[in-house]
C-alpha cells in the first residue's frame, strides 16, 4: 500500500500505467500473474520515481514561469519526494487523483499556449526566383522581365484559427512584385471564413478565396510542382482561381470518395468582372468541380475531376488580342470546362524516398466576345473555341530529390489560331520540408499569330517557410 500510495503521489499518470488493476475483481487463477506484476511494479517503481521527479521539476519550472510576478525562490518550490512520501499516510487516493488532474490541467494549459491554440497559427512563406530570359518582357510572354531578373514572387503571410467552435477563418496576404515593373504591392489573396460542423457533410466558404476549379488553379504559387503556373491556367482562368463570393462543398456520404463543389463569385481569376456598372446575377461567375479518387492498388492511385466555369454576361473588357480585321474583342460570355487527372505511384513503405506522379489538366474555353470590325460596321458576337492542356511527370528518387518534365500546349482563348507550346525539365531539391530549391529550363514556342517570340528561360527558385505550416489537403 505504501508503494501504491507513493506511486500515486510521485507519478501524476502512474495509475493508468501500472497500478490500475482492480485486484478484488480478479479470478483466483491470475494470482500468480499478479504477483509477477507486483514484482515488476516494484522493480520499475524506483526508475519511474526518478522519471516523475524530472517531470515535477519541469512542472515546477513552468509554474515558476507562470507566477513570475512573485520573487523566484532559490530552491525548487515543489517539496522533495521524501516529504511527499511522508505525507501519504494522511492523503486519500481521491485527493491524489484530484491533485493529479490539477497538474494535468496545468500541463495541458502550458501545451496549449505553446501551440498557440488561442492565437492564429501564423506562417510566412518567402519565394525568390532568379531568371534569365532570352527575350525582352514585351516578347517573351512569360510575365517576367527580359534578360536577367531576381524576383521576389511571394512574401506570403498566412494566419488561420477557429473563429468559434463551428467555423474557422484564414487570411493570406501576399506582398509580391510586379514581374515586369518590379513595383511591390501588398495584396490580400485570401480572407475567408469556413464552416466546420454543418450537417450532411457540407462545408460553406465565404469571403475571398481560391475557388475550386480544376486542379492547380487554387494552389498558391509556391506550392506548384514546377516554377510557373501552366500557361493555360494563366490564360483561361486568369492565374489563381481567386474569387470573392461563396462556395459550398459536399462530401458524398458514401464509402467511396466523391466530392462536389459549387460556388459563385464576382470574379474567378485576376480581375473582378463588371466593376462600376450594375451587376446582375447574370454577370456573376458560377463554378464547380466534381472530383473522385480510386486506389488501383496499395501503391497506385488515380484522382480525377471535372470542373466548369460559366459567366453568362461577363462584361469583361479584356481584349488583349486584336485578331486581323478587328479593333477590339470584348468578352461577353465566359465558359470554360476543365478535366483533371492525376496518376500517382506512392509506395506505402518508402514514399518519402520514392514516388511518381503524372498530372494532367485539359481545358476547353468557349468564350463569347463582342467583335468590332476595323472596317467599320456594327459589332457582332463571336464565339472562340480554344483548348489547352498541361501534362507533367515527376519522379522522386530520394527524400530530397525530384525531377520532372512539364509539357504545355494552348490555343489563345481569344484567337484559336494563335497557338503556343512549351516544355520545361526541372529539378527540385527539397532540403527540408521548409526549404526548397528548384532549377527549371523552359522553352516556349508560340506561332506567328500570337505576336510573341520563342523564348528560352532558366529559373532558379528558392522557397522557404517559417512559422506554422500545414500539409494541406489541396496540395497533397
Amino acid at each position: 500500500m505504501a508503494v501504491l500510495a507513493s506511486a500515486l503521489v510521485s507519478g501524476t499518470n502512474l495509475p493508468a500505467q501500472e497500478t490500475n488493476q482492480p485486484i478484488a475483481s480478479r479470478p483466483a487463477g491470475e494470482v500468480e500473474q499478479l504477483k509477477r506484476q507486483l514484482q515488476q511494479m516494484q522493480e520499475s517503481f524506483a526508475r519511474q520515481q526518478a522519471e516523475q521527479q524530472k517531470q515535477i521539476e519541469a512542472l515546477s519550472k513552468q509554474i515558476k514561469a507562470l507566477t513570475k510576478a512573485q520573487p523566484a525562490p532559490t530552491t525548487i518550490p515543489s517539496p522533495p519526494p521524501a516529504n511527499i512520501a511522508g505525507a501519504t499516510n494522511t492523503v486519500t487516493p481521491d485527493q491524489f487523483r484530484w491533485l493529479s488532474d490539477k497538474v494535468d490541467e496545468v500541463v495541458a494549459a502550458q501545451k496549449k499556449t505553446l501551440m498557440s491554440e488561442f492565437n492564429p497559427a501564423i506562417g510566412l512563406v518567402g519565394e525568390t526566383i532568379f531568371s534569365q530570359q532570352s527575350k525582352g518582357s514585351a516578347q517573351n510572354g512569360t510575365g517576367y522581365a527580359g534578360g536577367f531578373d531576381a524576383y521576389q514572387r511571394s512574401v506570403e503571410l498566412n494566419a488561420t484559427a477557429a473563429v468559434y467552435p463551428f467555423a474557422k477563418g484564414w487570411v493570406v496576404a501576399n506582398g509580391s512584385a510586379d514581374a515586369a515593373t518590379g513595383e511591390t504591392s501588398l495584396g490580400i489573396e485570401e480572407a475567408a471564413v469556413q464552416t466546420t460542423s454543418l450537417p450532411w457533410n457540407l462545408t460553406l466558404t465565404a469571403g475571398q478565396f481560391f475557388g475550386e476549379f480544376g486542379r492547380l488553379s487554387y494552389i498558391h504559387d509556391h506550392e506548384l510542382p514546377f516554377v510557373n503556373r501552366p500557361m493555360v491556367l494563366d490564360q483561361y482562368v486568369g492565374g489563381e482561381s481567386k474569387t470573392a463570393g461563396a462556395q459550398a462543398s459536399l462530401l458524398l456520404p458514401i464509402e467511396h470518395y466523391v466530392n462536389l463543389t459549387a460556388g459563385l463569385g464576382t470574379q474567378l481569376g485576376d480581375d473582378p468582372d463588371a466593376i462600376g456598372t450594375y451587376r446582375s446575377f447574370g454577370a456573376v461567375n458560377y463554378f464547380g468541380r466534381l472530383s473522385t479518387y480510386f486506389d488501383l492498388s496499395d501503391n497506385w492511385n488515380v484522382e480525377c475531376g471535372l470542373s466548369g466555369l460559366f459567366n453568362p454576361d461577363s462584361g469583361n473588357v479584356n481584349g488583349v488580342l486584336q485578331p486581323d480585321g478587328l479593333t477590339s474583342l470584348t468578352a461577353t460570355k465566359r465558359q470554360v470546362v476543365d478535366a483533371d487527372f492525376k496518376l500517382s505511384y506512392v509506395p506505402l513503405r518508402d514514399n518519402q524516398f520514392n514516388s511518381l506522379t503524372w498530372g494532367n489538366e485539359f481545358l476547353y474555353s468557349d468564350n463569347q466576345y463582342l467583335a468590332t470590325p476595323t472596317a467599320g460596321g456594327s459589332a457582332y458576337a463571336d464565339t472562340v473555341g480554344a483548348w489547352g492542356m498541361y501534362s507533367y511527370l515527376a519522379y522522386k528518387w530520394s527524400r530530397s530529390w525530384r525531377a520532372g518534365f512539364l509539357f504545355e500546349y494552348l490555343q489563345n482563348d481569344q484567337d484559336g489560331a494563335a497557338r503556343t507550346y512549351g516544355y520545361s525539365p526541372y529539378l527540385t531539391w527539397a532540403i527540408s520540408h521548409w526549404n526548397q530549391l528548384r532549377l527549371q529550363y523552359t522553352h516556349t514556342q508560340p506561332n506567328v499569330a500570337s505576336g510573341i517570340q520563342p523564348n528560352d528561360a532558366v529559373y532558379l527558385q528558392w522557397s522557404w517557410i517559417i512559422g506554422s505550416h500545414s500539409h494541406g489537403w489541396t496540395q497533397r
Partner: protein
Amino acid sequence: MKLKLSFVALLAAVLGTAPVNAAKIRVVTTLTDLADFARNVGGDQVEVRSLATGIEDTHGVPMKPSFVPLLNRADLVVLAGFDCEHAFLPALLDASRNPRIQLGQPGYVDCSKGIDPVEAPTSTDHSEGDVHPYGNPHYMLDPVMAKTAVSNICDAFVTAAPQYAADFKKNRDAYLAKLAAKIMEWKAEMAPYKGAKFVSYHEHWPYFAARFGLDYVGTIELKPGIDPTPRHIEELIGEMKAQHVPIVVREPQFPEKVPALIAKQTGATLIKLPIMPGGVPDTDTYIKEMDYIVNTMANALKK
C-alpha cells in the same frame, strides 16, 4: 411513391446504415499498434480500421482520399500524438467533415496524454529538424508507456459508450496483464545486455533504450526527418568505432544503403526492426512486434 421509397432504401444502403454495425463504435486509428490496442480493449463493441497498414513510416502515411469517407463516419480517431501524424492527419481531419473527431472533441483520442516526451525541442522554430516538434513521439516502442496508450483508449471508449464501461475495463485489464507478463519476459531477455550500444536510422528508440537499459548512441539521420550529410556519417562512424557500437538498426521504411555501409565500415551487425505491427512479416499484433524487436536485438547482441 414506390419510387421514392426505394430511393430511400437505396440511400440507406449507400449511407451504410445497415443495422448490423449500428451499435458498434467506429474507430479509426492512425497506426497499427493503436488499432491492436483498440481491438483488444473494444472487443465486439468496436469496429477498428487503421490508416497505416504497418509498413509505412509513422510520419509518412500517404494522405489518401479513400481515408476521408472512413474518417467521415468515425466515432473516434485514435492517434499517437506529439505531432507524429503531422504530415497526414490534420489535413485528413479537415477533409473528413466530421466534427466529432476534431482536435478538442471527445472523439479525438490523443494517446500521448500522460506521456512526458523526451527530447522536447528547446527552440520553437525548425532548427531542430522537421518531425518531432513536441518531443519524441515514438513512446509506443516502450511497452510500459504503451500501457498509457491502452488506458487512454479505454477511457475514450468508456466516454463514447458508457453502457459498455465494465466490458472495456475488463478487456483493458486483461490486456494490460498480458502485456505486463510479456514485459517481464522482454526484460529478462534483455537483462544480459544492459548498457549495450546501438545506433538507428531515425530517432525511434530513446524510450525503448531507456526501458531496457541500452545505450542509444545516435542516429543516421542528421535530425529527425533530415537526411544525413557525408560529414555526419563520417562522424557517426568515428563515434561508433571509438565506442565499439555493435548494432546498426534499420527501420524497414528507410533505404538500406547507408546503414549497410556504416555497418560494414564499423563491423557492426545490421538489423531490421519494425516500428509498428506489420512492419515486417508475422508481426501483426503489438506483442508479436515487440517479441520480434526484443528477440532480434537480443540475438544480435548475443554474437
